[in-house]
């Protein structure tokens, strides 16, 4: 069988195409971005011309995926963990409506926060919504479980969440594919009111969802991805979720773990397997990547006061990614004293690229703030968030996408004058427009700097929905065209930029100042792609 070297995210993209999806809907976000990028460049996806454009945000993406499912086709939605916060409304409600064509939501978590604001665990959302959650432990399972998830979704009538952490998303291994399936034909839901959540319907559908729960538990118990491995030493039973299983087995290179083990890759938790483990073993250790979800669940589960070890009582670290060494320690293995990192080493934090326009915007803004006073620049998420670090130290906040404008508005409402919001072009169309509307309606005294590099740079230079539309959007929302100002972030324009910001700061109302120059990495990427196309 031909093995292909694929990252976890690529394996998911390949499996979704092979399973006959008619569309992928996504907004970029590390570590989920490459699923969609993989499909965008996949030969079969191009031949079938399945939907593969970026959406404006995760909510629009998931809603569109649901619409495609309504029409009977299989659809995939992808996002990073915090993206699911944005899409949470549709996510919770589509558990109630159920699906028509198979629908899979891939959510990529980022424990240890390699590139995220937090390390929230998406499995909680899956449990909250009471839908099946798949958590593959390796690249092949990522492929196989994605491939099967669409059929599983259609069988249960529910959306399936597939949850992966950074380590699986961005790690490669050999993966074997399965036969390509046809796309579903267009077919409307047999119940024309299936997607109608008027309370009278909603109550009924919620009951349907509750009624399915025991079946889902049974399916988990029967799943080939959940497993019970016998072990001779019954002093301890081990529960491993997703990739935590690998970290356990890494400690037993001969596959000779002495303890009984339950591996969980499909939720709701396989209750029978866990009861069996509890019955056979004195104590339990739960290893899971993320928050202690299963550990919390099991602590009171058996009603016998069985001791459960894990992240909550220090057997494993309370936060952050797991690794084989954490498991070794929890199992009482002797570790060699490792070599030490020399103390002379300096840190090497990420920084803005040489020639990046964000630098010029911050140089100018800093000059204005020197007079206006510190602590008044509400920023957002993107490459420009690096403006929080020296040498700029310009911005004061970064919370969630779009919060720059709205937090600045709240501070202005509180009486802080002047206030600045700094937001990227993609973040603006993701979640900035509604906040701007609030400002326009209330004539807030606010200065909004849109740092427009014409791409989604932070995640690798994807197309931005904002491109060529920002001024029109602002005008349409109701910003006075006289206070929509444009500059080119270049060193030679420094004096002019400072002047523009000063003028708008003096205006008591909504000002939008747009600094537009394409990201230098995106320019390089486009050149490289054009060259590659020429070679073909």
């Amino acid at each position, binding site marked *: 069988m031909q*093995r292909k*070297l694929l*990252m976890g995210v690529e394996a998911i993209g390949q499996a979704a195409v092979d399973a006959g999806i008619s569309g992928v809907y996504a907004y970029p976000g*590390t*570590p989920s971005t*490459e699923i969609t990028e993989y499909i965008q460049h996949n030969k079969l996806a191009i031949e079938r011309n399945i939907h593969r454009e970026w959406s404006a945000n995760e909510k629009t993406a998931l809603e569109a995926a649901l619409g495609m499912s309504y029409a009977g086709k299989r659809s995939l939605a992808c996002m990073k963990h915090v993206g699911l916060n944005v899409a949470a409304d549709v996510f919770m409600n589509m558990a109630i409506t159920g699906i028509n064509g198979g629908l899979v939501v891939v959510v990529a978590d980022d424990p240890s926060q*390699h*590139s995220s604001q937090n390390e929230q665990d998406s499995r909680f959302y899956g449990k909250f919504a009471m839908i099946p959650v798949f958590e593959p432990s390796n690249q092949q399972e990522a492929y196989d479980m994605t491939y099967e998830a669409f059929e599983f979704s259609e069988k249960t009538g529910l959306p399936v969440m597939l949850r992966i952490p950074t*380590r*699986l998303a*961005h*790690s*490669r*291994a*050999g993966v074997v594919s399965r036969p390509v399936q046809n796309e579903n034909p267009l077919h409307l839901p047999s119940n024309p009111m299936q997607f109608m959540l008027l309370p009278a319907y909603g109550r009924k559908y919620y009951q349907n969802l509750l009624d399915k729960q025991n079946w889902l538990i049974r399916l988990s118990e029967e799943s080939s991805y959940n497993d019970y491995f016998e072990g001779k030493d019954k002093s301890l039973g081990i529960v491993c979720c997703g*990739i935590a*299983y*690998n*970290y356990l*087995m*890494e400690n037993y290179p001969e596959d000779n773990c002495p303890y009984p083990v339950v591996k969980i890759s499909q939720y709701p938790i396989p209750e029978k397997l866990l009861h069996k483990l509890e019955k056979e073993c004195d104590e339990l250790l739960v290893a899971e990547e993320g928050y202690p979800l299963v550990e919390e669940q099991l602590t009171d589960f058996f009603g016998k006061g069985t001791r459960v070890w894990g992240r909550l009582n220090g057997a494993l670290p309370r936060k952050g990614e797991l*690794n*084989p*060494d954490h498991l*070794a320690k929890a199992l009482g293995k002797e*570790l*060699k004293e*490792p*070599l*030490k*990192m*020399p103390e*002379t*080493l*300096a*840190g*090497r*934090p*990420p*920084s*803005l*690229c040489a020639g990046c326009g964000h630098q010029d915007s911050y140089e100018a803004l800093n000059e204005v703030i020197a007079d206006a006073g510190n602590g008044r620049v509400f920023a957002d998420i993107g*490459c420009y968030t*690096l403006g929080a670090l020296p040498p700029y130290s310009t911005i004061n906040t970064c919370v969630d996408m779009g919060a720059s404008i709205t937090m600045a508005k709240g501070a202005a409402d509180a009486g802080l004058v002047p206030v600045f919001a700094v937001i990227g072009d993609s973040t603006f169309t993701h979640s900035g427009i509604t906040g701007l509307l609030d400002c326009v309606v209330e004539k807030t005294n606010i200065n909004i700097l849109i740092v427009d590099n014409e791409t989604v740079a*932070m*995640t*690798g230079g994807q197309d931005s929905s904002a491109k060529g539309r920002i001024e029109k959007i602002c005008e349409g929302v109701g910003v006075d065209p006289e206070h929509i100002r444009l500059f080119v972030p270049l060193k030679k324009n420094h004096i002019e930029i400072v002047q523009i910001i000063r003028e708008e700061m003096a205006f008591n109302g909504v000002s939008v100042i747009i600094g537009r120059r394409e990201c230098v990495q995106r320019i390089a990427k486009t050149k490289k792609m054009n060259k590659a196309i020429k*070679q073909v």
Partner: protein
Amino acid sequence: MKTDIILSGVGGQGILSIAASLGAAALNENYYLKQAETHGMSQRGGAVVSHLRIADHPIYSDLIPISNADLILSVEPMESLRYLPYLSPEGSLVTNTAEFVNIPDYPDLEETFTELAKNINIIRIDADRIAKETGNPKASNMVMLGAASPFIAIHDEIIIKGIETIFKAKGEKIVEMNIEAFKAGREFTLSKS
């Protein structure tokens, strides 16, 4: 057989071409491979690391356990030291000597390397200069791969096939130049031991 490699450098230095060559080599030979990379935030001029594991049996963890790496292969000297806790005391450290200075407090590392060399096998190579000498200044990463190759449990001919596989699309000349660079790096290390 297994080789666990920590690949390190600075975002933008292209350590992934090294990983890709070894990946292609491993796949050609039907070896098992796992390779965890850094994407996202840390790529903007920050420290980057990749865990690369090759074996003739299935591999569980995507991450190399502490004190288990057979090799640290770094395209930047300071970055070669950041992951020392991963290196097995019997392992080797192979690093480019060309410093990538994009921070204000870059330390002097001479003494640190001299001290370390008393206990572990260290190869320091000016890969940028050797790449230039072979007429392909862009191929310093392949010089590094060559310099590290004596410590990797894959035959050098097979690694060369891996290099062919990943550079094939760019034309024969590029393939040749990268193989030349690989050989020059390998020669350097073999002449030291």
